[in-house]
């Protein structure tokens, strides 16, 4: 095992440009202060509402519930706190289908594993399941959805934005279709929340997943918005917390931190969105011009602000990620969870299901790069990437026998 100090020794720069916000963001200073305050407040268990220490803890949760709800235009009484997006996604889908066993389940082939893998466990339960195939930009075809909904009311789970390729669905159109067919829409907004405006009523989302650590809050806490007309069953057993739907003592400091993060975001979401959109477009254009053999993934316009993703012919993605990392640029191959460096054997080293879905040649898939910026990324960060990335690609091209063959073939063809 290489120690972190040793790893840094191979790092050739003092620069630190964090472009992996899609996998986690740094908690905001205001969030850190709040968590610190809550941890120091000698609070009781929120369920111990017989004494003031417990009452105080309950109040902190209620305040946070208001702030988180406000970010998505929801009523506080319709918000459930969970341990994160993974749990929220499971509670939304499996919890809904437990309480509504006549419904089907429809999702797309680019959803996060915490949505998509539920297909596996639900298959035993006699539930109608469809997995929609997206187009080469990662967009769901409304007609395909319409068709899938013909037979049966379903819970449809489609995220607003995909973390790996950045594509954003036309979620209002999707929710319209769902509701016209008596179906309901769950949307995993882990990748989108904090970057674009979200409103459950305007967008027509019935169940909505939020993750705190993806919006400048702490890891270990998430939320699920549940439209008041929807019945959910809990996915594990215990006490009566969170309206009986999510048993277990609440993560009071984490919830408080999530509340602060959402409150902060609400203040200046729009300005960061515009800024990151411009910086993204600029970076895209620059890489398009300076990086040979680059292929962008996802939709060129309908995409997350601050999100650029691509693969490069003739070079392998992990090598590029390592070189970027050694130069202080922290990027990823999309969803950290699907990162395969730690797979237990070669079989697990499968290509990303998302890139596969959008038609990237299957064995290039491991080679894609996602650069995801957030509110703390400066223009300087972007400029640094622009200045460094083309050279790193060239370095790998000089090492690539595939590139050699390509040039030789070209010379032959040209000559």
């Amino acid at each position, binding site marked *: 095992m290489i120690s972190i100090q040793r790893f840094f020794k*191979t790092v050739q720069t003092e620069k630190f440009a964090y472009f992996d916000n899609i996998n986690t963001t740094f908690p905001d200073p205001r969030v850190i202060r709040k968590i610190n305050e809550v941890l120091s407040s000698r609070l009781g268990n929120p369920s111990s509402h017989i004494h003031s220490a417990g009452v105080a803890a309950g109040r902190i949760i209620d305040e946070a519930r208001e702030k988180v709800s406000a970010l998505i235009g929801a009523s506080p009484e319709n918000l459930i706190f969970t341990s994160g997006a993974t749990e929220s996604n499971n509670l939304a889908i499996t919890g809904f289908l437990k309480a509504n066993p006549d419904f089907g389940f429809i999702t797309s082939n680019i959803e996060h594993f915490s949505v998509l893998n539920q297909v596996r466990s639900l298959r035993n339960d006699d539930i109608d399941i469809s997995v929609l195939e997206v187009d080469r930009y990662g967009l769901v075809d409304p007609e395909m959805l319409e068709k899938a909904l013909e037979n049966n009311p379903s819970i449809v789970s489609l995220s607003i934005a995909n973390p790996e390729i950045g594509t954003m669905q036309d979620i209002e159109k999707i929710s319209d279709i769902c509701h016209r067919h008596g179906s309901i829409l769950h949307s995993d907004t882990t990748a989108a929340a904090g970057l674009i405006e979200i409103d459950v009523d305007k967008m027509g989302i019935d169940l909505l997943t939020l993750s705190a650590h993806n919006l400048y809050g702490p890891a270990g806490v998430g939320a699920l918005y549940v439209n008041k007309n929807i019945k959910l069953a809990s996915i594990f057993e215990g006490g009566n917390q969170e309206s009986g739907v999510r048993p277990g003592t609440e993560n009071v400091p984490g919830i408080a931190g999530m509340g602060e993060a959402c409150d902060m975001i609400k203040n200046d979401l729009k300005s960061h969105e515009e800024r990151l959109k411009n910086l993204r477009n600029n970076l895209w254009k620059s890489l398009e011009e300076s990086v040979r053999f680059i292929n962008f993934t996802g939709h060129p316009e309908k995409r997350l602000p601050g999100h650029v993703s691509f693969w490069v012919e003739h070079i392998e993605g992990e090598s590029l990620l390592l070189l970027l990392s050694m130069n202080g640029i922290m990027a990823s191959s999309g969803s950290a969870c699907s990162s395969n460096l730690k797979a237990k054997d070669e079989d697990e080293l499968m290509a990303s299901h998302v890139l596969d879905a959008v038609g990237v040649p299957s064995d290039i898939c491991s080679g894609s790069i996602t650069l995801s910026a957030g509110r703390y990324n400066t223009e300087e960060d972007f400029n640094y990437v622009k200045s460094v990335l083309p050279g790193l690609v060239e370095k790998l091209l000089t090492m690539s026998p595939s590139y050699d063959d390509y040039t030789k073939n070209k010379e032959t063809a040209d000559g």
Partner: protein
Amino acid sequence: MDKPFPYSEIVMDHFANPRNMGDMENPSAVGNVGNPACGDMMRLFLKIENGVIVDAKFKTFGCGAAIASSSMLTEMLKGKTLEEALKISNEEVVKALGGLPEAKIHCSVMAEEALKAAVNDYESKEE
């Protein structure tokens, strides 16, 4: 249980500063393995004099482990007779690298295969 960083120091060193990377003029033998469509491709060049490998170079399209395995293999080859070289197994490459993540063992296998391919190439030319 999970390790925080999956590559050893030696792997990272050989990845960051690959030894013997590049083309070779008039190689005695070339070994080609892998396929760009598989995201893994290795080309090994050998200069052989009197049955001894006097120089080895490589080009590799692949992950960190693939590049480090190639680099390490070329280092191990130099100065060895063909007979000695053929005894180098992928396990020895892995050991020399201070280990590889389980899912990356195939990269060391590719290195071994490149060596065999190069020796084959040499022998077919000799015939």
